[in-house]
């Protein structure tokens, strides 16, 4: 295995996990952009998405034809996205909206409470053990003996990138997107312009949670095992990605996710795995020292 092959394989590894981080990071960054809340329950929404995917796969059963497999994948992704956006709406309605005028810290603590609630609810309903997700797609690997890419990696990358492009279209080319941008800039002014701020916030939660749900299914299918506290570590990484890219900035979350995945892959590959998080977070600190608002900076205007 040549040095070039090694590098290429590490880049493929990094981009795969990085695109999952990016999908989840979008939810953190969208919510932060609009209501300046770090939604710590978001990692749990991602985990619920993985479990919804598992439930759907167990419910439908694995298909053996190619068309059936693709249809199953799409149905499972749609169900998880739908279920998670409903969950996101509920969390916003029940836990955050009543605290709209409360101090920021109260909402943050509530978010942590919601996170514990979801973890334990999933543990009680699906059991405390690791759950195995049966593969719904055949294991296909393209490449030679040393470098290769699997079907699942291609799907993860393709689904993530197309969702991110779709999200950009929603934000920059629809009336709802314009309302979201307006609310992010100044909620009061947006309300004076006749925008229903509560509705915009609800839609933001729904979209962010749907993306996390899709991320959860892809993550579950890729690693084939899920556990009720998988949301914690992955959520933390995705949050880091959002900060790295510039929290509140949507292209920043995508860039941050991919960069974080690459950093992890390369530092584990070229230094050592046990130093992976040290190297990754050291680079995060350095980036924030020189670019305090993240790689792409926060585009939202500072309020005076």
């Amino acid at each position, binding site marked *: 295995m040549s040095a070039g092959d090694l590098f290429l394989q*590490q880049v493929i*590894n990094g981009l795969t996990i990085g695109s999952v981080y990016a999908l989840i990071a979008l939810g953190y960054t969208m919510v932060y952009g609009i209501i300046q809340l770090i939604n710590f329950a978001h990692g749990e929404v991602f985990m619920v998405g993985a479990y919804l995917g598992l439930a759907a796969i167990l419910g439908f059963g694995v298909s053996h034809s190619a068309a059936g497999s693709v249809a199953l994948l799409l149905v499972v992704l749609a169900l998880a996205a739908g279920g998670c956006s409903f969950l996101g709406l509920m969390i916003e309605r029940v836990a955050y909206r009543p605290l709209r005028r409360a101090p920021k810290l109260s909402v943050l603590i509530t978010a942590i409470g919601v996170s514990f609630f979801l973890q334990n609810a999933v543990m009680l309903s699906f059991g405390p053990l*690791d759950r195995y997700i049966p593969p719904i797609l055949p294991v296909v690997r393209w490449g030679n003996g040393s470098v290769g890419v*699997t079907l699942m990696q291609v799907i993860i990358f393709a689904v993530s990138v197309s969702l991110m492009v779709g999200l950009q279209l929603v934000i920059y080319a629809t009336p709802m997107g314009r309302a979201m941008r307006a609310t992010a800039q100044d909620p009061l002014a947006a309300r004076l312009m006749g925008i229903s701020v509560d509705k915009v916030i609800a839609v933001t939660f729904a979209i962010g949670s749907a993306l996390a749900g899709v991320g959860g299914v892809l993550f579950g299918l890729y*690693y084939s095992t899920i556990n009720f506290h998988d949301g914690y570590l992955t959520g933390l990484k995705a949050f880091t990605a959002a900060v790295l890219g510039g929290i509140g900035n949507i292209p920043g979350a995508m860039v941050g996710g991919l960069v974080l995945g690459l950093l992890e892959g390369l530092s*584990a590959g070229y230094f050592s795995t*046990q130093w992976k998080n040290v190297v990754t977070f050291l680079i995060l600190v350095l980036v924030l020292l020189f670019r305090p608002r993240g790689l792409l900076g926060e585009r939202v205007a500072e309020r005076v």
Partner: protein
Amino acid sequence: MIRKSRGFLLVGFVLSAFFLAGGCGKREPAVKIGFAGPLTGDQAAQGLDMLHGAELAVEEANAAGPILPGYKVELAAMDDSRSPAQAVTVAKKLAADPDVLAVVGHLNSSCTKPASAVYHEAKMLHINPVSSNPEISRQGFENFYRVCSTDDLQGPAGEQFAMQRLGAKRVFVIDDMTTYGRGLSNEFVKAAKAGGVQVLGQEGITQGEKDFSPLLTKIKSLAPDLIYFAGMYPEGALLMRQRMELNIPAKFMGGDGLFEPTLIQLATAQAADGVYITTLGGDIHQVPSAAGFVRSYEAKYGHMGAYAAYSYEATRIAIEAIRRAGAKDRQAVLAAMKGIKQYPGILGVHSFDARGDTTIRTIGIYTVRDGKFQFLESTN
């Protein structure tokens, strides 16, 4: 003001409800055997397996007649979620309960080690079923006993098998950086270096992580002929799967933390096929003295994992010590335990050395074939 007093009233009601619930219903006087292990979280499959073994032992002992005249023996089960901090918390809870006379517990060496200090301070009998780190019994705690072999035997046994049977010359060693994992990987590396096997690297991974492909890609470029993993089955399963997806030809071997049927399910039979696993004892299904246990366990709980037999054994020995002590007294139980020699258990005949380790020092070697563990051989 009104709202505040209403709040107080509510608290008062709740509290009195608790007191009432605690007060009514007279209970039979009991002595307890503490049990601690991971009952939730990613290693709960092994923890629950251990819990079932302990439950079965207590149930059988109670059915056979009173252990202490006038008392019923109960199991006080605690969840340490494989976290050392949580392990100390539950150890303190068990130590503070005057009904608890002995503790069977902790799966992970990283939990057993700090918890053992708590039991030592409480002067309470502590029998460990499966934590194999050798350092635990070298702390000089006279209340500590252990019914399994240790990693200073497991590491070299794995290395011998890898070198002689698998012809391994270049190995890469991974561990999970826990007391157990790092300890076992160090023993393996020590034996490998002494045996002239080239160690290409020794690296740690973090428990709970899922993506090991960067590490495995690096290992692939070094082209070892064996990957040795000292850690638990959730990470082991992912390593096996990702090894298959990256098309790495090196053989795969691991320690007893992988010896759990769930491993094969999580890894898939295809990825687990042909991996080698060392265990802390021989094949339980071949020991005649264990046949009755295996039958009643499988009738009650279904399929048996690897650790149930050890916690069953440890619990039975704890019960025997309580029976011999003849009194609800921790000191007397400890003194009675010192007198237990040549104990005929299901794993063999146990005596305990000065450190409290069992004299049964067998290491078993298994492989996976057609989605099942298959026993190959054992030392001694």
